[in-house]
């Protein structure tokens, strides 16, 4: 027994081809079928190595998610392992984990048992971490996280604002376990939900349990998951499919990536439970090609689950069979829409089809199909494992559980945050997010990506749930929260989203194909200072028609960012149209840089940094900017020490 997932000795007969129904429970409490003290001790030792770090057996948890990986975390892991081996220390466990959720401070390292949280760790810091922290038990203070507001050093990561107010259920394993070790997942009660479902419950009971939990689709629309399952379960036919929608295409959202990279087994277990409940024996994970690391970790996880008899035939000797395949998307935002995703798996252009028939009746290859998002699937094991009563204590009356948001933009702490439904936006932005970057002023929060909307300051006290956000003109959507400050132009943000949806429109239906193009043209004109008085009416009318008449969710929600900005920030549109000015100084066509002769010391620094050479002057002649040549990059404004450059 080298790892927890392995059989303990020759008496254990569990293999993928001869599965034992007690396998999962046996890993946690075993051995159950024979009495052997040494097996018990060995299992306990392996378990405590995974779960119970202490001063003698420290755990060094290095975030190796996409963010930190790109900042060089793999090098840190190698250096830590080499450094410890050189010094003959074999008791510390250096672990490559999923996303800690604080990418901006990456690479991050957490050292257990003290939960010491080191940020922006570089290769040259490693020997000091080993010598000071791991060997001598002292903190490397210069690497501790400093709170941007209070300036205090955080002693352990649980006191860091970003983590302190969270309720991490789905993200609990992310950053603690090695996602490429099925043993770690098993040690954390993994696959217990599956065992409970297939051994003690009928499929109908499982569906009922998910219904009772009140879980709603985390892909953004919030459709009740249990109801979706029951529709597919009731559909006629013996061949059914389950699909995980991991085509997280929303710009500004990366929670699905975090879960897939940090805890892939939770998604697999959720899908297994769903397949059992619905009566499916085959599943697909449709993952976008832009997430290579997530795809790799899923492949590893699927292979390990197959090896240990948790995927494949006769799972846990229950007669239940389930095969799982990965399909890599090929880069089309519309494939996040369920009917488009299905035809894409079939190898066609990813264009949505008319519903009904819904996939629950006629989906992949014409068979009943149930599609849920990554985060929805990851909720399921916890509901089964801990029961509905436990699950429903989190959230609001109509939106149960937690939701993971990707907090980004002009906020001090950017990262993944998991919060109970019902928390206010103000708490997320100012408490967890630590307020606005660079001391700027908050202007709006953009929620739910291209399908969502922007909410102003006065809406920050609403409780976050599906219904409240929709009523306010935004939506939970994918869960991207992009914070905008006074330097962001709201017309430009609407233009940005429209240019995205217009590019990504599949072109099948006219309202979306042509409508988004026209909306975009008008918005581009406005940002260039060529807006006309009747534009606002045209925009509103066109937006309403597109919403009402588009074929799928992409077109039906594409005008949302525009409508929300028109609703809350109309004055910015008016300033662009009637005064030809951009209040945020963001639309380059409406900007003009000038040199203030009074303040100018004629040092010439501005003309040195100008990339296009449009600033002329010398010691005798005052400096001037040729506005025709100027590309409005702002380099001169940044460089001038005397505030002599002004922006109008």
């Amino acid at each position, binding site marked *: 027994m080298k790892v927890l997932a392995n059989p303990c000795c020759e008496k254990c007969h569990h293999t993928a081809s001869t599965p034992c129904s007690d396998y999962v429970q046996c890993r946690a409490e075993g051995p159950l079928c024979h009495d052997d003290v040494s097996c018990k001790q060995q299992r306990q030792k392996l378990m405590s190595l995974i779960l119970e770090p202490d001063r003698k057996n420290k755990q060094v948890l290095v975030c190796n998610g996409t963010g930190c990986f790109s900042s060089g975390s793999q090098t840190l892991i190698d250096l830590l392992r080499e450094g410890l081996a050189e010094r003959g220390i074999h008791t510390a466990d250096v672990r490559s984990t999923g996303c800690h959720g604080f990418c901006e401070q990456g690479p991050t390292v957490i050292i257990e048992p003290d939960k010491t949280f080191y940020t922006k760790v570089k290769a040259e810091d490693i020997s000091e971490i080993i010598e000071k922290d791991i060997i001598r038990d002292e903190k490397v203070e210069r690497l501790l996280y400093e709170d941007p507001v209070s300036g205090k050093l955080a002693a352990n990561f649980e006191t860091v604002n970003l983590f302190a107010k969270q309720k991490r259920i789905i993200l609990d394993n992310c950053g603690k376990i090695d996602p490429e070790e099925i043993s770690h997942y098993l040690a954390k009660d993994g696959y217990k939900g599956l065992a409970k479902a297939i051994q003690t419950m009928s499929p109908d009971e499982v569906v009922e349990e998910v219904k009772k939990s009140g879980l709603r689709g985390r892909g953004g629309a919030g459709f009740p998951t249990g109801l979706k399952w029951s529709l597919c379960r009731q559909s006629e036919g013996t061949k059914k499919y389950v699909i995980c929608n991991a085509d997280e295409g929303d*710009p500004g959202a*990366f929670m699905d990536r975090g879960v897939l990279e940090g805890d892939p087994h939770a998604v697999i277990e959720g899908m297994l439970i769903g397949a059992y409940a619905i009566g499916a024996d085959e599943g697909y994970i449709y993952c976008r090609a832009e997430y290579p690391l997530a795809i790799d970790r899923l492949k590893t996880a699927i292979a390990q689950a197959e090896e240990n008899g948790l995927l494949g035939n006769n799972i846990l000797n229950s007669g239940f069979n389930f095969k799982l395949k990965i399909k890599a998307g090929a880069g089309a935002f519309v494939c996040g829409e369920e009917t488009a995703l299905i035809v894409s798996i079939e190898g066609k*252009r990813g264009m949505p089809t008319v519903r009904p028939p819904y996939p629950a009746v006629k989906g992949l290859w014409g068979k009943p199909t149930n599609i849920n998002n990554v985060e929805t699937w990851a909720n399921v094991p916890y509901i089964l494992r801990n029961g509905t009563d436990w699950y429903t204590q989190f959230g609001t009356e109509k939106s149960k559980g937690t939701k993971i948001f990707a907090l980004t933009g002009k906020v001090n702490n950017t990262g993944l945050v998991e919060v109970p439904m019902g928390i206010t936006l103000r708490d997320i932005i100012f408490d967890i997010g630590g307020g606005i970057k660079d001391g700027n002023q908050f202007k709006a929060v953009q929620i739910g990506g291209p399908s969502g909307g922007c909410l102003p300051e006065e809406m920050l006290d609403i409780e976050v749930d599906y219904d409240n956000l929709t009523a306010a003109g935004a939506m939970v959507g994918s869960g991207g929260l992009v914070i905008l400050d006074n330097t962001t132009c709201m017309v430009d943000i609407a233009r940005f989203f429209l240019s995205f949806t217009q590019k990504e429109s599949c072109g099948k239906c006219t309202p979306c194909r042509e409508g988004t193009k026209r909306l975009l043209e008008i918005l581009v004109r406005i940002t260039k200072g060529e807006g006309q008085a009747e534009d606002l009416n045209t925009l509103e009318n066109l937006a309403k028609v597109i919403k009402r008449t588009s074929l799928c969710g992409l077109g039906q929600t594409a005008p949302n960012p525009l409508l929300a900005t028109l609703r809350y920030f109309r004055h910015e549109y008016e300033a662009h149209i009637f005064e030809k000015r951009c209040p945020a100084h963001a639309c380059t066509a409406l900007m003009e840089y000038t040199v203030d002769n009074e303040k100018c010391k004629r040092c010439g620094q501005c003309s040195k940094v100008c990339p296009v050479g449009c600033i002329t002057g010398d010691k005798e002649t005052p400096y001037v900017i040729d506005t025709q040549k100027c590309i409005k990059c702002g380099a001169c404004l940044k460089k001038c020490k005397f505030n002599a450059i002004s922006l109008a």
Partner: protein
Amino acid sequence: MCKCCDSKQEAVFADSNQHRLNEILSAYQGHDGALIPVLQEAQEVYGYLPEAVMRAIAKGLKIPEAKVFGVVTFYAQFRLKPTGRNLIRVCMGTACHVRGAQKVLSEIERELAIVAGETTADQRFTLETVACIGACGLAPVMTINGQVFGNMNSGLVSDILKRFK
């Protein structure tokens, strides 16, 4: 006859990888929905999808050529032209946008004298934009040959580009 590049060069090009394409095609024989994974793997081999390769795939999977071409032009991942030696992808996601991705992109376009979607005449760089690579915490972000550069600003562009020959 290929219209988008030198057809002679393409013939040599296709020949040296012919057996790998055949391997891919035979691995997916009889699989439902094989077209997209086959195209993905073929693009791994060739770097893009030359016309001859698309024809061979249509023949091998017994799918009309028009259908293959239709799928290739629908998905952003597939390329009809070869890329330069280094592929720059600038993320234009929401978080990157509000933190100044456009300035980074403009600086690269200025430095290389090409616009997004083009390749430099010396084949050194291809410049693309991407909707979101999911590293929003490091915004603005760009990748060169898969290597991620976070917290970008236009001042860093020139030095980074110099590292890639």
